[in-house]
């Protein structure tokens, strides 16, 4: 299990003068649910298509199952793809769509039907085998595309935004199903998405990409709690940023000072350069809380409440604080009727030391 199923080394891709992917290094482990997350145009699809063999890298190497993939067409690779528009063959019925790739196996009719039936059951479509490929709803098309790819028993399944065409409710249901399916079949899934919730909720690990580069590869908790940069932090939901001066530093620790937090000492993160002089501290809005009159917290910041937005299960408060140009965003869960806060009132915001994320300035 230690050797990666996919290993990508120094892969770049140019379109004319434009660099869509810039020197990508990436390993994907056997059997994991891996997501490529990033804003539109960052190169996710390009990377996925190069793994699947629909496009060749301009430079660099892609190995799947320890074999170099240079020049191999999609039908010569141990990968299968679920396309964004599903690409269901409109002239074939569901069963023939699902069994399309079985032709090379020269199965007899009974075996063919059994394999297709099994695949349809796995995606919850049994009984729909005779439905025409052009007579399906979005969710059904998605399932057919999944069954059609999984029946090939690929080593890696590639999924390009497979849920983006579905409505919210169906999307959430399919997220759960996809995750469950992946666990059941044990195949490595690589999912492309620009939806951070999708990436966080489904994946074992997430690669966050910007402008043709990979910014961070980590499990969802790490990506969210300990983003590697301001870009990553920003892309994965909101984050408050506080400027801080570096007063002293060594290989292990940094002593920081900021008007908001007072002096604090934080452990140096891997890859955090020495001698920057300044740093940024990130705090997720839900790690801040509004303190009652008698409550205390390890770090307290006073400010003026000037706006709040009610979202049902949470309320977002904006708190203007001296020494920071941006107001602090505080997310409060509406669990047990806390104090009603009016705009303009003085509030004390509290946080734990562990809520602070050390970021480059």
């Amino acid at each position, binding site marked *: 299990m230690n050797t990666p199923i996919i290993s990508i080394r120094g892969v770049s891709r140019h379109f004319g003068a434009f660099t869509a992917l810039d020197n990508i290094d990436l390993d994907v482990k056997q059997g994991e649910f891996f997501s490529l997350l990033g804003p539109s145009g960052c190169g996710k699809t390009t990377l996925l298509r190069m793994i*699947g063999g*629909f496009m060749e890298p301009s430079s660099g190497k892609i190995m799947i199952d320890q074999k170099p993939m240079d020049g191999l*067409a*999609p*039908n010569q690779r141990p*990968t*299968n*793809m679920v*396309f964004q*528009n599903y*690409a*269901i*063959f*409109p*002239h074939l019925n569901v069963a023939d769509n699902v069994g*399309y*790739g079985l*032709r*090379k196996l020269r199965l007899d009719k009974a075996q063919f039907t059994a394999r297709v039936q099994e695949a349809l059951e796995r995606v919850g479509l049994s009984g729909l085998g005779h439905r*025409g*490929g*052009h*007579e*399906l*709803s*979005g969710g059904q*098309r998605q399932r057919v595309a999944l069954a*059609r*790819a999984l029946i*090939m028993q690929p080593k890696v399944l590639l999924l390009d935004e497979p849920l983006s065409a579905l409505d919210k409710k169906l999307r959430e249901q399919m997220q759960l199903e996809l995750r469950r399916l992946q666990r059941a079949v044990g195949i490595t899934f690589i999912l492309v998405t620009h939806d951070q919730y999708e990436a966080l909720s489904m994946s074992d690990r997430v690669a966050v990409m910007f402008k043709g580069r990979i910014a961070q590869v980590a499990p969802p908790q790490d990506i969210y709690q300990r983003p590697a940069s301001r870009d990553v932090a920003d892309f994965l939901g909101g984050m408050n940023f506080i400027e801080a001066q570096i007063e002293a530093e060594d290989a292990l620790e940094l002593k920081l000072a900021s008007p908001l937090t007072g002096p604090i000492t934080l452990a140096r993160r891997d890859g955090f350069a020495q001698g920057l002089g300044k740093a940024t501290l990130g705090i997720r809005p839900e790690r801040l809380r509004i303190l009652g009159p008698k409550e205390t917290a390890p770090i307290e910041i006073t400010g003026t409440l000037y706006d709040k937005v009610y979202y049902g299960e949470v309320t977002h408060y904006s708190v203007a604080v001296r020494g920071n140009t941006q107001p602090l965003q505080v997310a409060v869960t509406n669990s047990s009727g806390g104090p009603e806060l009016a705009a303009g009132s003085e509030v004390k915001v509290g946080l734990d030391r562990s809520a602070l994320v050390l970021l480059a300035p």
Partner: protein
Amino acid sequence: MMAGAKNRSVLAAYAVAYIVFLYLPVVLLPLFSFNQSITPSFPLTGFTTDWYLALADEPEMHNALINSLKVAATTSVFATLLGACAARAFTRYKFRAKPAAEGIIMTPLFLPEILIGLSMLVVILWLGFELSLVTVVMGHVLVCLPYCVTVLISSFDGFDVTLEEASTDLGEGALGTLWRVILPIVMPGLISSLIVSFTISLDEFVLAFFLSGDEATLPVYIWGQLRFAAKLPIVMALGSLMLVASIGLLIISEIVRRRGERRLKPSGMDTP
């Protein structure tokens, strides 16, 4: 509102006149073909199927018919094959010569056929080829190509490229993909194209007249027969049969096209 009503009745009269002038001669043809009199004129003198029976004893005509069918079949296959290549290139790829290539293929639509016939005749004689059905096919392919390309482009345009990628992804090579995905999906377009070019070739006269040498096609033969007044009713019977055949072909082509369109609407997103 008075003006509106008046306008409308003028329009209606125009429409009726239009239809009468366009289709009356076509209706008269079968009518006279069942008339006993040799001259096509009113009053009708009585019903007969003699002229149709007489068709059976015209070996020269049979020859011409067979020639025409050979030419039309060959033309439709070649024009559709060439048209499919062109339509695929136009819908799938961008290239610098594309506007020029499209222009050149469409040109025969706008050139007088007599010019095409004359220039082909000159070139063929100059190259030292014999005039024959082969040269007729060459001319017919040229004039059918614009129609085939137009029909095929509209059929290929709706073709989703990811279907080809999906087929490759599922293990098929280029030929398997052509056979299992591309052909079935564009088949209605191919059939339309075959029928359209077949029909055009079947009744094309000018080019056939210039290029057929001594192997007459049916229209050329009919033209030759018009010199003999006694043959006129037989020719009209023949014409009526051709009319029925063309209408039949047209209906088939339209049915195929509509069926294909329904099936190709790929996003069945709305059907539950």
